[in-house]
């Protein structure tokens, strides 16, 4: 049986520029999947193909076992929330929300009742006679969401819906959307370039780069064990280490870091002694001072110490090898130029395939 939404080797080219390249993607019913990537990575094009505003150059898209890539948008039954909300400026809030129901020829009395109920759900019933222009950004956003939900579409598509909101409101809306997703069991495809947004909201994240999926996994796996260099650098911050593999023993590699330092790292399959590979080590996984049993210990010098409010960023060097560590402020006092032992668990230093 096919997954609920399936992209089957879908490509999209605009003229000679290939924006999406032989994409395979499967999304299950009730899943919240984020498409994350820098601008120009093809994530919005994928959403537009799913919504029906763009047609794939090649490949097929299935929804619930039915091929949909030739269907026009109005026959796909998907609720789309746009970045700028795209509310109808000449209609009241209630008329906006009623629009999709009118399109489905729902009886008048039922429309009124369902609009009422939907607006109640987002706590904006008192605004139903206002025009969109009389609402704040957050309220417009909620109305756009309500309008996309009210006709009970099979999928909700969101194209950077929170991009125009300020930070606090954005975080609030993230939780609200997540809550709606859980309560109503919605299938949501969410496009964003904001990694923290993707990490907080999604069941799974697909990280895009240049029209391809670099990695698709749940947020924790994406963050803790990025598979490629791009994912490691795009999500959060990381120390990228180019190192020579000295030996491999039962998924643990002994690597030489340069400057006479060596460490043990988590190695995937296919890593062999003698080759050079890239490893990722998150700054917050590096401890300064104490060395727990079984972890790597490196003698480093503190090159710089930068204050960041809730944490400190400590730059460590030894000859031409350097690391960045992120430390709690209360964890100690560090003076520039002092020697320190940096330690990390071998499982936190993961190999990158590309």
């Amino acid at each position, binding site marked *: 049986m096919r997954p609920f939404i399936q992209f089957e080797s879908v490509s999209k080219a605009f003229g000679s520029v290939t924006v999406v390249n032989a994409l395979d993607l499967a999304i299950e019913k009730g899943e919240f999947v984020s498409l994350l990537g820098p601008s120009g990575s093809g994530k919005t094009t994928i959403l537009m193909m799913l919504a029906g505003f763009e047609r794939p150059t090649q490949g097929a898209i299935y929804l619930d076992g039915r091929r949909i890539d030739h269907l026009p948008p109005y026959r796909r039954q998907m609720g789309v929330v*746009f970045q700028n909300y795209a509310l109808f400026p*000449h209609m009241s809030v209630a008329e906006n929300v009623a629009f999709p129901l009118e399109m489905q020829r729902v009886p008048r009395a039922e429309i009124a009742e369902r609009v009422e109920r939907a607006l109640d759900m987002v706590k904006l019933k008192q605004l139903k006679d206002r025009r969109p222009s009389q609402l704040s950004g957050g309220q417009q956003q909620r109305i756009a969401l309500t309008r996309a939900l009210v*006709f009970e579409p099979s999928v909700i598509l969101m194209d950077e819906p929170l991009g125009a909101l300020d930070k606090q409101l954005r975080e609030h809306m993230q939780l609200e959307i997540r809550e709606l997703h859980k309560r109503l069991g919605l299938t949501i495809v969410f496009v964003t370039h904001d990694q923290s947004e993707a990490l907080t909201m999604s069941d799974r994240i697909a990280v895009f780069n240049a029209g391809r999926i670099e990695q698709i996994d749940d947020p924790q796996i994406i963050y803790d064990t990025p598979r490629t260099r791009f994912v490691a650098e795009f999500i959060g911050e990381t120390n990228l280490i180019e190192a020579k593999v000295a030996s491999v023993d039962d998924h643990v590699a002994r690597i030489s870091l340069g400057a006479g330092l060596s460490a043990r790292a988590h190695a995937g399959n296919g890593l062999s002694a003698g080759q050079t590979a890239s490893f990722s080590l998150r700054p917050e996984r590096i401890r300064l001072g104490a060395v727990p049993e079984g972890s790597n210990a490196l003698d480093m010098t503190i090159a710089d110490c930068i204050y960041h409010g809730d944490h400190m960023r400590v730059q460590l060097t030894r000859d031409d090898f350097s690391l960045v560590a992120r430390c709690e402020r209360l964890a100690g006092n560090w003076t520039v130029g002092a020697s320190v032992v940096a330690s990390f668990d071998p499982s936190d230093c993961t190999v990158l395939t590309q």
Partner: protein
Amino acid sequence: MFRALQFTFGAAIVIFLLMPIFAILPLAFTSSVFLNYPIPAYSMRWLHELTTADVWRTSIVNSLIIGGGATVFATVLGTLASLGMRKGALPMVGLLRTLFLLPMVVPAVVLGVGMQIFLVRLGLASTYLGVIIAHAVLCIPFVIVSVSAALQGIDPSIERAASSLGAPPVTVFRRVTLPLAVPGVVSGAIFAFATSLDEVVLTLFVAGPNQRTLARQMFSSIRENINPTVAAAALLLIIGTLCLGGLAALLRWRQKRSALKTAPSAI
């Protein structure tokens, strides 16, 4: 010092532009039979003449018929053309747009000669329909400019949203695109009407004696028997144009205000 100069210069230009109008208007109320100053006494006799004499009355009615007809033609065709040129689907849209706007810059005399030959061929010379078509050609560019600007102001994602919410293309047009473009269509129609109202050259070429418009009648009365009825007619035209201009400005102001307000307030 420089500001004072700027102000004086600006004021001088405004006076220069308005002087001819101010010069003619008082003559509408003269009691003399001559179109000159000084005015011996004020009277309403020429305004009365304008509204009672047959030639003048029919010319006013003709202006309204021809202006109305040309406005309807130009508004419908101009709106359709703007809609067609809006989506990038057409090849050479830029060239098309220039062609559509050409009547604005082509000398009216050239247009008039061509139009006369063309309308004679069609058997429409010296008919109301012929004059209406000729005027519509001149009016279409104004409609296109105005409607295109209105369409450009519509965020395409609003139409996409409507489509994703289940509206087929015709419904999207009827429920979303058209209502949002209406202010542009109306102000285009106003400009079209005003253009037709004061058109003389084209009318001289294509209109017969039965389609004498107010502007055309003023033109010939100056040559034949000059009297202050012309000034009275000018007064009427100016009041009419001012009303139309005011209406257009009001519409534009409302459109701008609503455009400002529809921008998401958080940006």
